[in-house]
Structures are given as C-alpha cells and as structure tokens.
C-alpha cells in the first residue's frame, strides 16, 4: 500500500454498505449484490458489471459474520444480484492491473477466507448458502457461487457460469475456483479442463450435466423458486429459530503512532525491526452467568473480533512488518474458566458461533504470511484457547524461571479440552495433532495433562515449546531470533513457513491456499500475465498479449 494513503479499514456494518443489500424473509436472508461503480476502494477504476474489489468483499465478509451472530433465526442465505442479466463478473481487472503484487495477493487471500467462512456457515452453523444466478457469473462471480452449497442458474439461453481467467488474462482463478470445481463439486477433470479454457463458459443443460450448477430454473420463476428452495432449507436448519441475536457493534480501536490499542489487545509496531508485538489480554473477571446478555462484550468474542481486525489491518496496511511476536497477559485460571464455559455450552447457538469464530481467527493467523514467534513470559496466560495462538507460531520461546526483580510468577502453559478438537487447522487436524504427527499417542497422553500448570521444563518435556532460555539468555535469544528473521528474504520465508506449517493431509482448504500461493503467485509474477505485454496488463486495451512460449 502507498503509506500516504488512508489505511484500509475492515470495520463496517450494513448501514454503511455501498455494494450489498441485506434483507430477511421467512427465515431466509437475501444478500443482494449491486456494486456501486464509483464506490471502489481506490481511485482509477470503475466497478462495472458487478465486479468487485477488496471493499466489496469487506462488506460481504461483514455480512456473513453478522448473519451468524445477529441472526440465529436465519437458516438459509441467498446470494443473488440486483442487476439484470449480470450476476457478478468477478474481481475488477483494472483494479488488479493497478494493484501492487502484495495487494493482489492479500486481496485474493481475503476473498478466499471470506468464501471459506461462507462454507463454514453452511457446514457448521446451519446457515446454508444458496446462489441464485441470473445472467453472467464470470470468474470470481462463479467462484462466489462455488462457495455456496447450491447453485441455481437461470435457464434463459444466456445465463452462464465461467472461469475465463486463463484464456482472457493468462492467470488462474484466484479464489479457489479450480480446486472447488474438482474437489467440491467433483466435476470430471476432462470437463473441468474444457470449461476452464472456454472464456464464455457454459450455460443451460450442459452446465447442469457437467455438475457446474445444481438446478436450471426458467428466469420468470427464478425468484420464487429460489425463495421456495431457500425456505425449505431454512425450515430444516439446526439453528435456533426463536433465539434473539446479539449485536456486533463496531470494534473500537485507537491507532496511536505505532501502537494499535483495543480493549483486550495491544499491538506495538517496531518499524526498525520490522516486527509487531501482539499482547493478548486475558479476561478481567470470571465468566458471566449469561453469555447472551454479555453479547459482543463477552471476553472470548471481544478478543477474537479485535485479534481478527488487528491481523487484517496489519496484513493489508503494514506489509513490511514481517514478524509477529505473540505474547499474552492475564490470569490463566480465568481463561480456563472461560474455556470450561465454552466447552460446557457447546450446544448453545451463540457459544457454537464464538468457538467457530475462534477457529476461523486462528486459521487466519495460520495463513497470514508472517513469521510467528510466541514469547511465553511470566504473567502470560497461554491457556486453552489462547495456547492455540502459541501453538500456531513457527517457534516459541518460554522463559525458564522468572525475571530478576520482577514479582511475576514463572510462566506456565495450561491445556484445556479446547486444545483437543474445536479448533482444527485448515488441514483438518488440531494444532497438537499436527505438531505430533510422528506419534499421535502423544496427543492422547497430553489429555492427561489438561488443567495442569506446565512450567518451562514440563512444557519442553511435553514438546509444547521450542526453546526455554533462562533470564540471563532470554533477551539475547529473543532479540536474535527476531532480528535474524527480519534479515531473510520475505518471499523465501513465506514459502518456507507455508511448507512447514501444514504437515499432514491435504484438504480442499489447504489446497486452495497452497495453490494460490504457489501457482497463482508465480503466474502473477510472470511476464505472460504482468509483463508490459502480458495479458493482465493489456486487458481492456484491445492490444494482444505476446506470450513467452517456453514451458517452464
């Protein structure tokens, strides 16, 4: 980003949406896309034909999030377009052409997280997404549809779905399109090959026969049929139809120079060292008796929202801050009490949402393309849910003993039941299982340690931390680790970290991020896409791209 420009703010609410309308009827929410051409996040491009930029997706992500927390009565969500004969034409090409490489990648990553959160809502929250396509769903437009559980297509001879990126732009669909095609919808690979090389895509019967869409509906009946299908799905939903949602007010934060202050989180940026120190604060008091009454102020939810916002802010607006140092501060017993409450009330819709949100927030940490170093110091509270943050780090340093002259007790770690299931990574495994791939029985052994305060020696013994320097070595060890990190090539680090962070099985999710990072980012750098005569650069000028014909 241009440092002089205003930072991109991820905080919004429906009253401020420029591009989406959110309406409700009979247990169904309708998310209607009507992109304001002149409402781009940056100058220099018009968002024509329901094309989108990051600003459009920020609103979508906000809507998806609010639907889960503010609308327990909603069991189905319909994504559709306000426009005649155009559903969505995907990411705005001129925006991509004008964007820096890191912005493009960050944009793709965010849109991917939003699509995954849509799937998460369908699969785990009983809020099933249905896509109703009238007109053209091209590129990112079809990828948005692919994130939904059902795709309904107007059968009017012109409505079509397409992934024209390769033939038109010499890049790949950047939001999981290829992967979802074959992995989620299980489109036959030869069909997928033909489809992805056909710029205009497919419509009607062939689109349905090839599994690209689920149903064809005559356009005159599209609205009512969509409604009928959505209402049937909503009626069967596991959500609490008569519950009352909780409001998600704007996350409050103050940016004071290089410090970002939230109620439960502080982030201090060290520009010199190109690092940012997160301090996650534990709860100030015992859990309330009524989670619903506490609403957005309920500590686990408040902290997740703040942590999420801070990560997005740093990702987009602080791209040179390459190392995130993760610390915590608070009373481990209180964190443990909160975890117990979450575990005990897992059947409550709101608690379920909060736990799912922590899962997504931790996944966001996993894929943030930053070096993650956890510092476990006296006074910290890496317990249960918060321990996951330390387990997400590439390395952790735990102080053995106490600091001289400090009255804080020695640092300890504490496992809770939340470390054994509710927060799987993108690979489908918990962070502990991923950590101990070489011996899964170690994870079972650790269940016996639940609730124990593990000091540095015990934590090292249990394999939960990387290094345990004492107070004499601590400062140097930590400083060297962070400084050394800042010296390496950021690209190399991103690649290495991504390779090492996700051992174990591949899932659709890991494939999406890995392929995005590996293939798409490689292609984004290649002259055939972004060189002066590359397809992405020349798109819209009428000039034909000149390809380097070598197969690399």
């Amino acid at each position, binding site marked *: 980003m241009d440092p002089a420009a205003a930072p991109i703010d991820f905080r919004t609410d429906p009253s401020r949406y420029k591009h989406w309308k959110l309406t409700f009827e009979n247990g169904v929410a309708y998310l209607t896309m009507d992109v304001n051409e002149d409402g781009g996040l940056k100058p220099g491009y018009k968002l024509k034909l329901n094309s989108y930029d990051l600003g459009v997706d920020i609103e979508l992500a906000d809507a998806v999030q609010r639907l889960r927390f503010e609308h327990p009565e909603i069991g189905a969500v319909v994504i559709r377009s306000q426009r005649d004969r155009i559903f969505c034409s995907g990411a705005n090409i001129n925006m991509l052409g004008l964007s820096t490489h890191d912005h493009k990648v960050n944009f793709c990553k965010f849109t991917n997280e939003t699509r995954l959160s849509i799937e998460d809502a369908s699969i785990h929250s009983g809020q099933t997404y249905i896509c109703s396509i009238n007109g053209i769903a091209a590129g990112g437009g079809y990828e948005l549809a692919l994130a939904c559980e059902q795709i309904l297509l107007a*059968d*009017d*001879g*012109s409505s079509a779905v397409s992934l024209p990126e390769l033939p038109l732009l010499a890049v790949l669909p950047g939001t999981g399109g290829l992967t979802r095609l074959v992995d989620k919808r299980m489109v036959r690979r030869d069909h997928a090959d033909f489809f992805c090389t*056909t*710029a*205009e895509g497919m419509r009607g019967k062939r689109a349905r026969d090839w599994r690209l869409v689920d149903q064809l509906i*005559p*356009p*005159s*009946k599209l609205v009512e049929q969509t409604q009928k299908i959505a209402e049937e799905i909503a009626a069967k939903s596991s959500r609490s139809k008569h519950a009352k949602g909780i409001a998600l007010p704007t996350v409050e934060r103050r940016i004071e120079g290089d410090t970002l202050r939230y109620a439960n989180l502080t982030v201090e940026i060290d520009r010199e060292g190109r690092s940012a120190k997160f301090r996650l604060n534990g709860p100030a008091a015992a859990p309330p008796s009524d989670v619903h009454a506490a609403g957005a102020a309920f500590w686990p939810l408040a902290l997740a929202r703040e942590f999420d916002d801070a990560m997005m802010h740093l990702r987009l607006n602080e791209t040179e801050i390459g190392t995130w140092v993760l610390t915590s501060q608070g009373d481990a017993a209180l964190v443990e009490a909160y975890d117990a409450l979450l575990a005990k009330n897992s059947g409550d819709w709101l608690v379920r949402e909060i736990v799912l949100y922590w899962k997504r927030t931790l996944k966001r940490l996993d894929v943030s393309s930053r070096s993650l170093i956890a510092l476990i110091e006296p006074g910290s509270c890496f317990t249960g849910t918060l321990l996951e943050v330390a387990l997400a780090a590439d390395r952790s340093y735990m102080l053995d003993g106490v600091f001289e002259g400090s009255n804080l007790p020695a640092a300890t770690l504490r496992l809770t039941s939340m470390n054994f299931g509710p927060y799987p990574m993108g690979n489908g495994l918990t962070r502990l299982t991923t950590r101990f791939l070489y011996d899964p029985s170690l994870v079972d052994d650790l269940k016996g340690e639940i609730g124990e305060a593990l000091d540095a020696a015990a934590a090292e013994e249990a394999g939960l931390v990387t290094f345990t320097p004492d107070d004499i070595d601590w400062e140097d060890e930590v400083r060297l680790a962070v400084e050394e990190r800042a010296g390496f090539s950021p690209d190399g680090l991103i690649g290495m970290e991504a390779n090492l962070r996700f051992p174990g099985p591949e899932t659709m999710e890991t494939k999406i991020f890995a392929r995005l990072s590996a293939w798409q980012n490689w292609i984004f750098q290649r002259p055939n896409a972004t060189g002066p005569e590359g397809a992405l650069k020349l*798109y*819209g*000028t*009428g*000039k*034909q791209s000149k390809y380097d014909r070598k197969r690399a």
Partner: protein
Amino acid sequence: MAIDYSQLIPNNVDLSSDRRLQRALENWQPRFLDWWKDMGPDGTSAYDVYLRTAISTDSNGWANFGYVKMPEYRWGIFLADRDPDRQIAFGDNKGKPAWQDVPGELRSTLRRLIVTQGDTEPASVEQQRLLGKTAPSLYDLRNLFQINVEEGRHLWAMVYLLHAYFGRDGREEAEAMLERHSGDPDKPRILGAFNEATPDWLSFFMFTYFTDRDGKYQLASLAESGFDPLARSCRFMLTEEAHHMFVGETGVGRILQRTCELMKEHKTDDVRSLGGIDLPTIQKYLNFHFSVSLDLFGQEASTNAANYYTQGVKGRFLETRVDDDHLLVNATYEIETVEDGRIVRKAVPALQALNERLRQDYIDDCAKGVLRWNKAIERAGINFEMKLPHRAFDRQIGAFAGLRVSPDGRVLSEAEWDAHKDKWLPTDEDRAYVTSLMGAAVTQPGQFAHWIAPPARGINNQPGDFEYVRFN
C-alpha cells in the same frame, strides 16, 4: 429422406457435396420450418406473396420476383464472391491472408459474434408476426413479408456459418436460435431492443429505419472480418438489408406526407381529429426508436470491441477506405461521455472507442433520411422539422445510462425530466391512439389506409393496383 438441396436451398457453397453441412441442415431445416409456422407471420401459410428470391449472387440472380407461399420460400445460402487474394485489413494480423477456417483461439469469439448477429434476424420476424393483420395496403403487407423472409434467410446465413465452421457447438447454437423468442420472459432474445414489441406500423417503419440500420452497421463491420466466410456472408446480406431500410424510410416518409396533406387540406394542426398521425407523435416515436437503437452499439469504452479489432475479427465501417494505419495502437478518438454528471468531449484510446465510432457513422447515416423527410415536409409548406435527439437522450446502455438528458442535449434534474418526458417519448395515450388507427388490414389492391400515402412507385415497377398478395 433425401433432399435435393440445389433445388430446395439455392446456394453457392457447394451444398450438394458437403456431407457435414447436409447432415446439419437436415436436422435444422424442419425445425426452422416449424419455427416459421409457429413464430413467423401469423396465419399466412396459404398466401401467395409476390416475393423476391435470390438464386445466385450475380446481378440478375439475386432478384427473382414471383408468387411464393412463404413456407415454400427457398431460403438460400449465398456468400459474396471470394477474392482469393484477400488480406486482413486491420489489427495484429493485418496483411496476412484472410482466414478460410476459424483460427482456434478465435473460435468462441467468432461464434459469439455470429450468434449475436444471427439471433437478431429471427427476433424481428417474431416481433412483427401480428402486423399483417393491420397492414395499411397490399404493398405494405408484401414488404413486411419480404423483410420477414429475408430475415429468415439472414438467419440461414448465420446458421450456415455455425454449421459449416463450428462443429457441435455450432449446431447447438443454431438450435438455440430457434428456442429463444422475442419477449419471452424465460428465453428472451439476446439483445434488449429485439425483445420490445412492434405493435403498430409506425413502430415497424421506425424499427426498419433505425434498428435495421444498426444491423447494417454491424454487418458492415463484420464484412471486414478476417474470417472470410463471415465477411462474404455479411456482404451479401447488406444488399438485402438496404431494402429493409428503404421500407422504413419510405414508410415514415409516406406517413409524414399524408399528415402534411391532411394539415394543408383542412388548415389545421389537429391531425388526430382527421384520423392521421400528428407530427409531434411521429417525432416521439423517432426519439424512442433512435435511442433504443443507439444502445445496440454497446458501451462507449469497450474492451470487446478493441479485442475484436486487434484480433482481426470485426473492423470499422468501410475499414479499407479509412486513411490511417489500421492498427490504432497509439491513436485516440474523441467521444462524448459523462463526467461528474456533465456531458463532456474527451479523447480516449481509439481501440476502445470503436463502438462509439461506429455509432457516430450510424448517426450520420440516420441523419440523411431525416433530412429527406424534412425536405418533403418543407415542400408541403409545413413549418416543422423532424430532429434526431441527442445521443445521450434516454439511453439505457453505456455512459449515458441513467442520466436525464433532453433531446437537445441538456442534462436535466429528475424533476425536469418528469415534467417533460411525455413531450419527448410516446405516452400510453399516444400508443393507444396509434394502435386505434391500426384497423383491419387493407386488402383491396391499390387501396391504402387513411393515415398513409401511397408509394411513389411499385415493387419491381408494378402498377399501383398490383395484387402483391393473394389470400387464397
């Protein structure tokens, strides 16, 4: 059932020895006839109509007149003669030999263009299928049918290309062209203007003058295509399209003439009380059809148009007569567009402005007929001038969409627009009045409805009371 193609389908594409084409047409031809019976001119199968049939492309072959029952019309397939040395005249492939086959990488682009063009041909037949019931004369009825069968032939021309060059996809697209229907909420025609109703003869003449002229310009730019069979097809279609616009221009002219006669004879402007169509109403219809037709040219700044040009797929109007490098890589072109709610002129890259350039050629062409109409009004001693509205008036597509602009090009507030729009565009009342004039068809040779003047001369120099249609 073996079909004698040379008899049934006059052609110059060697149909009788092309098995692939025969197979495709065997399937398609019966469907086309079903479509004609279902969606073509209503209740006309038994009529003998004095029609022109093309049986070859030379000057005495393309205009054979005789009585034909329309379902038996011999829809032929004709391409303009091939120039073996023809080169692509523009874009990246400039100077290379014209393609006789579809280049792989342009397959879907060409197919889309051909389908979009082809789709308009049957669409107008569907739009006009009920007009025969209210024809103002046998002469007009015959012209309507001539246009209908030729639009049918133009569909054939495009279907031929799809069948001959685009394999299975082409065959599927050809079928889909018979499945979409004008104004059908579930399977509409591709372009908006071709889903509007043509409810009366004033609309029909305006449509053939303004909307068929868009067709002329699209065909003319496709006639420049590097894909030679498409270029040759379109060149031959253009000769027929000219007649359609002639019907439109003389049709509007004859209504104007009759209106002026009534005004002079009765010394009044109140033509409606005399059963004529008053000049302001005709102007409103003109405004409507002109702006709808302008929309057909697409966006002012168009990536597609730029790509079509660079790829050598679709050229400019009379490309080879334009004096420039025919690459346009660094050229600019001045267009009118909208900035901050104002209409401004600005220079933009010429490649992206090709739609606008074509639109400008079209506007210049439209103005010629308006000039002739005004000369006739002037000769009649009436002080009234028909005007083309500003290009920004009542547009639904492109930069001017949603902007409120008066016919003389002033940007208006919503309130100003609301206060005046009934003076500029046909109201429900205007349409009801024009519809009320459309009585039962006039079927006596040499007779004409009250609101339209006879033509200056007959078709193929036939006398004024010639029986152009026999109802049997």
